[in-house]
């Protein structure tokens, strides 16, 4: 039975629950918008990284380079799109 529950994955799961709890502080505690967003950004991206490395085994083969490039590239373009859109659609008008 024990071999079915590797330590790495259990720790990963506990850690992701922990991150969720930290993120929830934004809801339960009173804080400024910028503090809240900082917490959310940190927890969300760490959480994503945990999934990627611990559960999705992104780095286990020699295609590692291609896989990480792909993910970084996607994240970069997605962030550029999100912030560029905000700049164009909202902030530019203020």
């Amino acid at each position, binding site marked *: 039975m024990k*071999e*079915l*529950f*590797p330590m790495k*994955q259990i720790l*990963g*799961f506990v850690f*992701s*629950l922990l991150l*969720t709890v930290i*993120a*929830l502080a*934004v*809801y339960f505690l009173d*804080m400024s*918008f910028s503090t*809240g*967003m900082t917490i*959310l*950004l940190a*927890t*969300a991206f760490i*959480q*994503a990284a945990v*999934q*990627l490395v*611990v*559960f*999705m*085994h*992104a780095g286990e*083969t020699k*295609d590692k380079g*291609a*896989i990480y490039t*792909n*993910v970084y*590239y*996607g*994240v970069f*373009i*997605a*962030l550029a*799109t*999100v912030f560029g*859109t*905000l700049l164009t*659609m*909202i902030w530019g008008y203020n």
Partner: protein
Amino acid sequence: MKIDHSLPLEYSTEENRLKILGFWIFLGAEIMLFGTLFASYFTLVDRIGSGPSGKEIFEITPVLIETIVLLTSSFTIGLGVHAMRIGRKKAMMSFFVITLLLGLVFLGVEIFEFIHYVHIGAGLQTSAFTAILLSTLGTHGLHVTFGLFWGLFILLQVKKRGLTPETANKSFIFSLYWHFLDVVWIFIFSFVYLKGMM
């Protein structure tokens, strides 16, 4: 078909390795798909017209259930892949079944949530905000729905054909998909719900 026994089953043939890399690239496209939805969401979030705002309609309980359920399912499918790698077909299938059941719970809660939204006057046609909210959640929900059927088909194949390079490969790719949906949910949880309720 040349089988390389030094690697886990899902990587053991050239075709399998191609499929796994191809699927990762597909996930890159998915990052962009949800990235665009988020870009639109942030643009439209305050444009509520005469409808309700997020703060007025979001409730923490169903969201927390959905989050915990999906996180757990991501954990169990990870265990499923681990069981597959040590050749434990039965254990692997059980973990996959648990994953799919958790997915079903998630979907049930989400459908309940949607009905609730429509009920309190936050339907698809109410405002730009409700439209993008339901579309973003709906796109994720449709992915989960699709995943439930896909997972079911893979389970049937594993049951019938055992752990072969093909079925192991399909199961592994499915697990990538499922983890990715969890990642997307984390962003929805953080930047749609928590940010909205802050």
